[in-house]
């Protein structure tokens, strides 16, 4: 099986999906610019033309509505936001229209829209170019939300998102783009709503998604010598969430940490904690802990950035608090 990078897996998948299904098209800012979207759209314009690879004016609200309308007219748009921060302009179309349409019209028309939102943080980009909005988007009825953490998942979940009959928010993190993985050449899908155990362990469960899975595994590896055996679960889908995989794991370990690189207040950590607290209460031997960003906009200055983003060592210190020596 060929080893390719995360961003190459996305690029390959886009080529294959657009070749396979004439309903699929790509729309958004930067789709014809290599640097803007981390080389993920290379070659698409040449192969499929400007009719299906549509670089747009800076009109997030309008263009999101355009994608919604195209989905209503039997297309399968992939709408790209090169930075999630730009999505606020699009929230009306996402929440009041894409997420509500199928319900508010009694199931007559659906919106098979993939919203591809890129987290592009770090590098002193500061508050308006660094956000991770998975919690806000998971809050909204009518959306599914996925966050692939490996190149293999990047491909399989993108296929599932595009083939899904409902709006799916597909969130990736540029920090993952150079990560290599074995990725089959052919198209395959990964069911939305299924988590995965990335590392088996028996002392504590650490659940994470996207880039934080990588950090959680690093944390787990670094504690192995101390005899702390960490189980790492990759949520993969934030909505629907694989509750069972969490409950089963906590049943075994009795301890639970949720790691999410979003803000803590009413965040993914709060949601997952509530689920584990209410559905696995009798198996818990310690309080549930959260790792998240601080409740603050992202800073620019590098030394501040270094403490703003949680890393493996943040997870390690939380684990140490929970697991007795």
């Amino acid at each position, binding site marked *: 099986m060929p080893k390719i990078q995360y961003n190459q897996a996305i690029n390959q998948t886009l080529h294959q999906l657009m070749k396979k299904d004439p309903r699929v098209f790509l729309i958004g800012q930067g789709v014809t610019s290599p640097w803007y979207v981390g080389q993920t759209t290379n070659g698409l314009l040449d192969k499929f033309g400007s*009719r299906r690879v549509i670089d747009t004016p800076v009109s997030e*609200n309008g263009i999101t509505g355009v994608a919604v309308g195209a989905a209503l007219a039997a297309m399968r748009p992939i709408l790209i936001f090169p930075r999630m921060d730009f999505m606020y302009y699009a929230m009306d*179309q996402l929440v009041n229209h894409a997420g509500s349409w*199928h319900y508010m019209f009694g199931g007559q028309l659906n919106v098979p829209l993939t919203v591809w939102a890129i987290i592009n943080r770090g590098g002193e980009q500061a508050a308006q170019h660094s956000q991770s909005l998975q919690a806000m988007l998971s809050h909204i009825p009518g959306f599914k939300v996925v966050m692939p953490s490996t190149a293999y998942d990047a491909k399989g979940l993108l296929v599932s998102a595009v083939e899904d009959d409902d709006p799916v928010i597909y969130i990736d993190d540029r920090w993952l783009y150079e990560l290599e993985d074995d990725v089959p050449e052919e198209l395959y899908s990964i069911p939305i709503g299924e988590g995965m155990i990335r590392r088996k362990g028996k002392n504590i469960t650490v659940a994470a998604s996207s880039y934080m899975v990588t950090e959680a595994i690093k944390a787990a590896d670094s504690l192995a010598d101390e005899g702390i055996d960490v189980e790492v679960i990759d949520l993969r889908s934030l909505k629907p969430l694989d509750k069972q995989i969490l409950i089963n794991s906590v049943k075994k370990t009795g301890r639970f940490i949720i790691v999410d690189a979003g803000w803590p207040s009413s965040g993914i950590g709060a949601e997952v904690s509530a689920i584990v607290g209410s559905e696995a209460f009798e198996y818990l031997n310690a309080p549930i802990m959260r790792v998240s960003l601080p409740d603050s906009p992202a800073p620019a200055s590098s030394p501040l950035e270094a403490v703003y983003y949680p890393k493996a060592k943040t997870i390690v210190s939380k684990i140490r608090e929970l697991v007795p020596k």
Partner: protein
Amino acid sequence: MTERTVDLSSNNLRTMYQTMLRIRLFEEKVGNLIQQNEIVCPCHLYIGQEAVATGVCNALRKDDYVFSSHRSHGHYVAKGGNLNALMAELYGKVTGCSKGRGGSMHLSFPAVGFIGSSAIVAGSISPAVGAALAFSIQKTDNVSVVFFGDGATNEGVWYESLNFAALKKLPVVFVCENNLYSTHVHISDHLADTDIQKKANIFRMRGVQVNGNDVIEVFNVAKKAVKDARRGKGPTLIECMTYRWRGHVGPNDDLETGLRSKEELSYWKEKGPIKKLEKLLLSRNFLSKSEFLQIRREVEKEVDESLMFAKKSPFPSENSLLDNVFKAK
């Protein structure tokens, strides 16, 4: 006059008259039902603007798409949406066009190309452009139409949508129903420049202003715009000058609140679209007085039947609450 009637057979005029009357009598009935607390969901009545929906939709094919706003009953009816399903929706019944999920502000009848109405001001404009984009990718000759009010032209997304549609020469027709009020605010208090059609020019798009109470004029202008769109000549903005007889929402006429004068309302009622067409049809001997009566009786019967249908229909079952949040499980 010769140009005005060139595309219109007496048959076509009769159909348009019937449609306008259907909207009018349906809306009057709904107004009464709201006053009787029979209908609970907020309804934004279309009375006074019937010529706009009727003239535009009459220029469309069944498979053309229509998107609408919170004031959508007229567009739904003019595009051919089922009257029973509309009344049932206002009653919150499971037989409603949106199965009791939408109410007055969220109507849809895809079988006749009425895709949906959005209660977010300007909310359906960009989706209408998106449907037009889909048609252009699919290389079909369908046209997408969106109705919105003068208030919607204050939204940024209106400019974004017009720009993108003009940039890509998409088959979409923007129909602005300028009824002089954005909720309770007069147009002179919400637009720095009240000449809406002119704003099409900044996007190098054709803009036309028509008497929105003259169904023939609306039809002719819409027909040209639709033809242009179908032939790949891009979008048109049509500003239809009209007036809503009732308040922003509900059956009252806003006179009691002092939001407008009795003189203003009387002036516009005198210039009302149905009266105008009746005069024409009579003067040209297209319809006799007895034919008018017959049409009115037929429409009254349809409206009464829709009410009976709505009343006897069941409510959605409680266990269906979460149906249709997602299509795929």
